[in-house]
């Protein structure tokens, strides 16, 4: 097989085959009466997009994926591909490529036969499917392993075979259910990059399920953070990280300070928040109900978005506090400061941090863009 020919044809193919739009519209699912594992979930996977459902176990992310794949039926709501409702179709007639955590390769078939299997199911001739399967194995870098049994491959290789098998029949979208969960950390990171590269090459839409926030951040165009069967927030990785809308999102994605205060004079987009012993501006999420004057609120402030201020430095918000703990972690120093009537964690790379002693008085400052008023659920 001519490798250069395949590689050269790739970009053209990618633009030609841009993936399809998958819509999940107000979907509900319950296994036991009274409790819903999926509650009113809606999102739209754009053609060629990488969308991740991120959440802890039991948040409904896998159930949602299984409903898209057709292994579960929603109690209510619609699932559409390019506007066509697929909710009544069995999985074999939905045209999604699904990859599971355990790879699920057929143990009695060679790698090549595994990849050719979906084409065989479509009654494509032996010669054609062999060529297409080899071509896809080439793309995941495993053409040399075509004749082997899956068992003779490493975990990472098996996962790439599973990807090739899920892509070879040009599915409307790729559905990945924690596909890297069983791999060790280094291999996982290598495959994260590889999956992104394969996606760019093939141009397929991907719906990805994971509980690993770093993985979600690294790979996704958009992230839907799920909590107790609902989407708590849907946005780009920087949106959900920098501007979390609920306490759950704020604390599930990395570390944060949840500052208690009282909302004063809310305006469009911002409000003044009165903390114990200080005032500060904070951001209000668009699209969420604005808190009222006098409401108790919590404000999320990421440790790395807080700056150590010198005597003459200015910031949107500045407070003075007492250093109670200092840990040097190499890339940054972690400080715990008693301020605003609570412990505030600060992560800073500033050299100044090294010279501070516990008990010293420090000035902290942050931009109002980084203080986010949370929507209490």
């Amino acid at each position: 097989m001519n490798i250069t020919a395949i590689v050269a044809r790739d970009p053209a193919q990618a633009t030609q085959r841009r993936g399809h739009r998958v819509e999940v519209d107000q979907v509900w699912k319950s296994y036991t009466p009274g409790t819903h594992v999926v509650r009113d979930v809606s999102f739209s996977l754009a053609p060629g997009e990488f969308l991740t459902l991120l959440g802890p176990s039991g948040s409904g992310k896998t159930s949602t994926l299984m409903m898209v794949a057709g292994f579960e039926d929603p109690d209510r709501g619609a699932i559409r591909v390019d506007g066509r409702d697929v909710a009544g179709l069995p999985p074999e007639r939905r045209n999604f490529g699904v990859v599971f955590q355990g790879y699920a390769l057929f143990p009695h078939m060679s790698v090549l036969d595994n990849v050719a299997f979906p084409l065989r199911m479509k009654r494509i001739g032996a010669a054609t499917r062999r060529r297409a399967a080899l071509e896809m194995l080439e793309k995941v870098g495993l053409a040399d392993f075509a004749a082997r049994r899956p068992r003779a491959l490493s975990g990472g290789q098996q996962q790439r075979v599973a990807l090739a098998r899920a892509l070879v029949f040009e599915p409307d979208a790729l559905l990945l259910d924690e596909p890297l969960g069983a791999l060790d950390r280094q291999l996982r990171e290598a495959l994260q990059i590889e999956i992104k590269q394969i996606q760019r090459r093939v141009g397929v839409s991907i719906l990805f399920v994971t509980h690993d926030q770093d993985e979600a951040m690294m790979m996704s165009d958009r992230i839907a953070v799920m909590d107790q069967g609902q989407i708590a927030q849907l946005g780009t990785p920087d949106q959900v990280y920098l501007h979390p809308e609920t306490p759950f999102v704020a604390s599930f994605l990395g570390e944060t300070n949840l500052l208690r205060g009282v909302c004063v004079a809310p305006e469009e987009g911002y409000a003044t928040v009165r903390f114990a012993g200080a005032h500060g501006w904070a951001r209000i999420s668009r699209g969420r109900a604005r808190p009222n004057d006098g409401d108790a609120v919590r404000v999320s402030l990421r440790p790395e978005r807080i700056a150590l201020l010198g005597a003459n430095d200015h910031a949107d918000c500045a407070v003075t506090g007492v250093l109670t703990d200092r840990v040097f972690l190499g890339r940054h120093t972690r400080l715990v400061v008693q301020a605003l009537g609570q412990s505030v964690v600060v992560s800073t790379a500033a050299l100044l941090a090294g010279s501070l002693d516990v008990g010293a008085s420090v000035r902290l400052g942050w931009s109002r863009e980084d203080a986010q008023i949370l929507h209490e659920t």
Partner: protein
Amino acid sequence: MARRDGIARGALIASCTPVLAFLLLPSLVIVPMALTKGQMLQFPPIWISTHAFTDYLGDPDWFASTVLSFKIAALAVAIGGLTGAAAALALHGKRFPGKGLVVGAIMAPIVVPLVVLALGGYLVFAWLHMVGGWIAIGLLHGTLVTPYVFISVQTSLVAALNPLLVRSARSLGAGRLAVLRHVIWPAILPGVAAGAVLGFAVSFDEVVIALFLQGPQTVTLPVRMFTAIQFELTPKVAASASLFLALSVVVLLTQAAAMRRRSA
């Protein structure tokens, strides 16, 4: 220490050998008995001749009985294989009230005394005018084979069929029949084979049902042996019994091979 270990091992061997001999001797005595020169089945045998084997295979009645037993066992395995495998597939992973009863009904032929099964079968087949035909024996043996296939297929389903394989296959475009052919069948094949081999052996040497349902043209090999031992005491009995011994060795070897493949 080493000496005490040696003594302990010696005592172990000394106590085990008679037990093993007791278990094996009745089986092993058959082969030398078949190699006797004499015209009577007697112990100790007069060595050494293979005339018992040639007599056995040359006698048209004995030969017909052997063929019949193979035919019946084949039918029984076909029926039991189908029902046993189908039942295991149908019940796999399902939970419903009364499942225990269904499993009990499938296992019943092993538990119910053979005379009960044989008498019941006799009455039903007499009503159907089928007594004396080999099909009747094969059918009833089929019920006997079913639980063996059921158990071994069930075992291979649990051990070798990853539910994700089925889901994968379906998402890749395989309908129910294609899943059965490409995913489930390869997974249960060793179970079906092991159950079939065991079932074949069970049917081949079953004597109670075969006795109840026999006709002038349908005397199975074990039934003929049983009659021969009462009336003629010919060494052909020992020769045919050697055939059974060979068959059971085959059964044991296939099972051992299946176990090794599973653990590999």
